[in-house]
């Protein structure tokens, strides 16, 4: 039996759920939120996390469970950082996609925005793109919606401003008084009609 295995089967299930949540979490998860999700006391969660962290270390895993600002998170073990560095340098081949740029633009101009609100504007599910932007540190969870479902609301980070070379969001070029919009310009360039012609079903 693994030495990470806790005493009771009940606890075992809680630990499994804890591990699963920490694995999928994009940001550190607070003990309070974990306690709520696992239906345990905050103290129990703290103890479980400590035990689990010790068990990971003892078993010699390549990851560790750490307590950082804001809560608990899984991270790669410093001992094998050299490999992780190699992976990042070798394995990633990333250029900003237009999907990412559009999603970032929407969030930058209209924050705070939920995933659903971004989806409504872009017309496609922005999930994967938003995870990438979040992982890169350009956007972050800033609050939760009051409404039902309590959707996570996203906004841009100081890193985003830094990379864009601006001091604040006020420095973004304004969009409200910008006329004509992109599609009109495009249509004009095409030299084709701009307005919607009610085309009757002549061809049917």
């Amino acid at each position: 039996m693994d030495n990470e295995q806790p005493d009771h089967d009940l606890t075992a299930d809680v630990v499994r759920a804890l591990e699963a949540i920490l694995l999928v979490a994009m940001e550190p998860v607070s003990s309070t939120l974990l306690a709520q999700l696992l239906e345990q006391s905050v103290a129990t969660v703290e103890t479980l996390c400590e035990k689990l962290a010790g068990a990971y270390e003892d078993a010699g895993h390549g990851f560790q469970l750490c307590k950082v600002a804001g809560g608990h998170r899984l991270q790669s073990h410093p001992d094998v950082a050299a490999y992780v560095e190699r992976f990042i340098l070798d394995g990633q081949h990333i250029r900003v996609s237009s999907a990412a740029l559009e999603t970032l633009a929407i969030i930058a101009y209209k924050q705070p925005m939920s995933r659903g609100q971004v989806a409504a504007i872009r017309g496609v599910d922005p999930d994967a793109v938003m995870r990438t932007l979040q992982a890169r540190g350009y956007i972050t969870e800033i609050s939760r919606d009051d409404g039902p479902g309590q959707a996570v609301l996203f906004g841009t980070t100081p890193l985003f401003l830094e990379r864009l070379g601006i001091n604040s969001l006020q420095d973004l070029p304004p969009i409200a008084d910008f006329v004509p919009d992109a599609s009109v310009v495009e249509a004009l360039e095409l030299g084709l009609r701009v307005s919607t012609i009610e085309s009757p079903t002549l061809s049917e």
Partner: protein
Amino acid sequence: MGYEVTTPVFAGPFELLLHLMLSDELDIHEVSLSRIIEAYLAEVQKMESLDLDVATEFLLIAATLIELKTRRLLPSRDDTDIDEEFALWEERDLLLARLLDCKTFKDVAGVMGTLIERADLSFPRMAGPEERFASLMPDLLEGVTPFRLQRAILKVTAPKQHITVDMMHVTPIRASVADALIELIEFLPTAGRISFSEISKGITERVEVIVRFLALLELFKQGRVELIQGDRFGDVGVLWTGGSDRSFDAILNIDDYEG
């Protein structure tokens, strides 16, 4: 998500027919084509908001069924046109093959649905490298200026209808000369002298270019444009000479061109 396309209960005529025929299979020797046709037509009638294209597909199948039915009712005659007979057999075989295809992929879809359901119980690790590796990460935003960001949001938030109207003619590839005519009559009178390459600029579907060219020829025939070609294989210049007459009554009998 709101953008999921809502489909009728039966996404296609084969699906509907398949359902009716197989739910009738209690005793396969009792399969009644009459009952199937009745039920089929009843279903089609229920589909109130069916668009014309879809309705056509459903009705085509109904026509085949009725033809089969008619053939059965008619007494076998010696003077039956052998070609007609063959054509009907062929149509029937085709329908049968399509029903079998439909059944096959419905079953495949079922299995894939189960796979997805199972896969959905797991969520991948997506957090990415920790911040201590941040300096190694290639900067996604390299070369991205605030201006590019502005253009990106203007592009996604722009009202869509202007462009989509054009795109609808592009895909599915069904272009009509009539539509192209309307377009040209709307825009040429104020365009001054313009070249054909300008008119078809940005159009990627060949058939779209062709219908515009045919529309121009039609206008030329009607004496409403002047076509000027400087040299062989050169670009064609277009000049509107039709005055303010923007009627397009002469275009009703112009064909569609399927790509």
